[in-house]
């Protein structure tokens, strides 16, 4: 899913790079396991 960085509400910094998200859930999921997602690339909506 594409996110426009200028409008994104959810974002996080990791190792000097900004990552944008479509929702707070995605953001939290990324912050939980950043290394996993950096290796495996974006995935669908986390279900929790």
């Amino acid at each position, binding site marked *: 899913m594409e996110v426009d*960085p200028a409008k994104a509400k959810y*974002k*996080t*910094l*990791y*190792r*000097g790079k*900004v990552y944008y998200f479509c929702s707070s859930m995605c953001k939290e999921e990324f912050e939980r396991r950043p290394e996993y997602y950096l290796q495996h690339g974006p995935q669908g909506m986390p279900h929790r």
Partner: protein
Amino acid sequence: MDIRVGVKVEGRETVLKILGMHCATCSLTVQRALLSVRGVRWAEASLASNEARLVASPELDYGELLKAVRRVGYDVYREAVYISVPGARPEDAAAVERAARLWGVFRASFSPATSLLYVEYNPLEVGPRDVAEALTRAGFKAGEVSRSEVDVDVDRKAAERDARDLASRLLPAVPITAVLMASMMFPAVPPLAQLLMASAVQFYSGWRFLSGAYRAFRNGTANMDTLVALGTLSTFTYSAYAALTGGRAFFEASAAVITFVLAGRYMESRMKLKTGDAVRKLAQMAPPRARVKTGEGFTEVDSAQVEPGQLVEVREGERIPVDGYVEEGMGYADESAFTGEPMPAEKKPGDLALAGTLLVRGRLLVRATRSGAHTYLAEVVRLVRQAQNARLPIQRLADRVAGVFTWAVMAAAAATFAAWALRGAPPGQALLFAASVLVVACPCALGLATPLAVVVGVGRAAEKGLLVKNPEAFEKALRARFAVFDKTGTLTKGFPRVVKYVGDVEALAYAASAESKSTHPLARALVDYASELGLAVQPPESYDSFPGMGVYATVGGRSVGVGNERLMEALGAEVPQGMRELAEGLRSEGLSAVYVAVDGKVRGLAALGDELRPDAASAVQRLRSMGLEPVVASGDNERAVAAVAAKLGISRYFGGAEPERKAEIVRRLREEGGVIFVGDGVNDAPALAAADVGIAVGNGTEVAKEAGDVVVARGDLSKVAEFLQISRRVEANARFNLLWAFAYNIALIPIAAGLFYPALSLRPELAGLAMSLSSITVTLNALRLKRA
């Protein structure tokens, strides 16, 4: 009108316009508040019309309605008017107020110092005309009515008219009295001629005493005029009888008493005018005409007619006619009238210009925001005048005494006459002693004691930039033990600044550029700091902010992060141990510390904080030397508050206190002693109201809206100590006046009664002179406050 609502409620109906109601619960609150007032039988507040209707018994104290509504946080629309009541004596104050308290009048307060009656009324019920008529019915003269409060000339006009009247009655009395006194020694004037001359003095010159006494009698009271009238009439009548039957007359006594008392009143009314000088000076500062830009040129119009948005030209040496913002030009304005600060303030485009201030240099085009009766100046004048009409609590004792005083004096005079007659003194002599007692007694010094001190004190305070809204603050301030300060904006400047920067300048420029998009106060401080150092701040190519961490931006192709440890960690930038320790140290001082990382490397550390005002330390020190314990209460975090408290040597402080909690802290401290709260007039309103004395350090120009008993114009902490100083002087002055008034009466009445005769005695004419000098003493003493 009497109406019946439904079938049950009988009584008088009234309608109040309620201000500030904007929800359904509001109207319920108002309704409940109204119902709680004694005498109210039925009430209903309507949100739609912003009105409350109620039915009450006619004995309802109308003023209680206003108090009830205000107590729950709303207000009642009312109009105010000043009515001059020439000739009313200080002892008549209660009677005047009672007469004016009609159905629909919330407040009526009469100041004996200015002879002005201030009335706050519900325009839906009554008007100034009704009040004036009620006064006339009670036997008072209702003079000039002034609605526009800026017109301070009412009291001057009234006092001048009074002085003219006094002079015209005094003029014939002086030569006649001189002749009568001379004929006491050289019996050149036949008794019948003496009778004629004395009649002229008694009934023309002394007319105001006779009519005053009659008026008091009709109101069931007695005043100064009663005493003078009784004293002079009795000696005059006896002398007339003696003259007709060939006995020994003493016309000189009654004539001299009238002359001396008139002369005393004349001087008193001249001097009283001076007591209101401060406000009059203020009010006269607004120039009557303004030059307004119209098309190409300028047109002169009435200052009050200037519309908001119009451009007004002010030239060097002129007073600014309106409130507004400088649109064009540069100059210096003398604002000392509002601030007490003698240095002229610089005025450049965007700066606030106030009506009444003097442009000492330059030329300005001012974009008007308020004019006429809406200017800051007008508001200040209004407030000061209202405050001047108040009496100090210590006056209550004097008022109570003054109420019975005149009766007691009359009884004493009767006893004096009886005692001397019983001891076999000739009736003429016994009468002279009794007349002396009547004439020497001076209830007016009692009535004037504190009102005069308040008028002069409030005026003097205003000249120093202290607006006293509630003169009781003078007295309460002296009993205070604690001075509680708000921190942010009161002890400190109210906005953060960079107080320290460690690192290279290039990194700082990057940091400022990164922050230039943010509106956060810390960001603004960083940008300002960089600009002050002359560093170029450029807009970032990209910008992201992370709440609770900081910002991350790209500036000139380099990645820049400004924030705390968490941001640095997220950036993968390692914070050197030394810098981390430095940051910890700064934070323990209550400062905020942010790191600057460029391309993943920490290169700088900035410490930001809200600096203390330059005058904070000295102001706190001065209060401490005056015996007050300073306390800090702030909504800011504990650590920052502790740091500020430590810097000022304050041991008692409260952090994390929201406005409501501040009020709670004040209430708790009040159990230990009186509390002065010094804070922001808008945010700290609950605490200001909870304190014994609330001092609002205002930066705004909406003085009337600010809470607090005293408003310090344009934030200056040293004024708090100055207020205490003025309070001491006002209190001491009022006390001296009261003491003098009591001591004078206690000492001279027995002498006048002839208790120490023949070693020490007072003839009526000397008694009259002493009495006049006594009132003049009180007035002169109050005037000393002008230099307080």
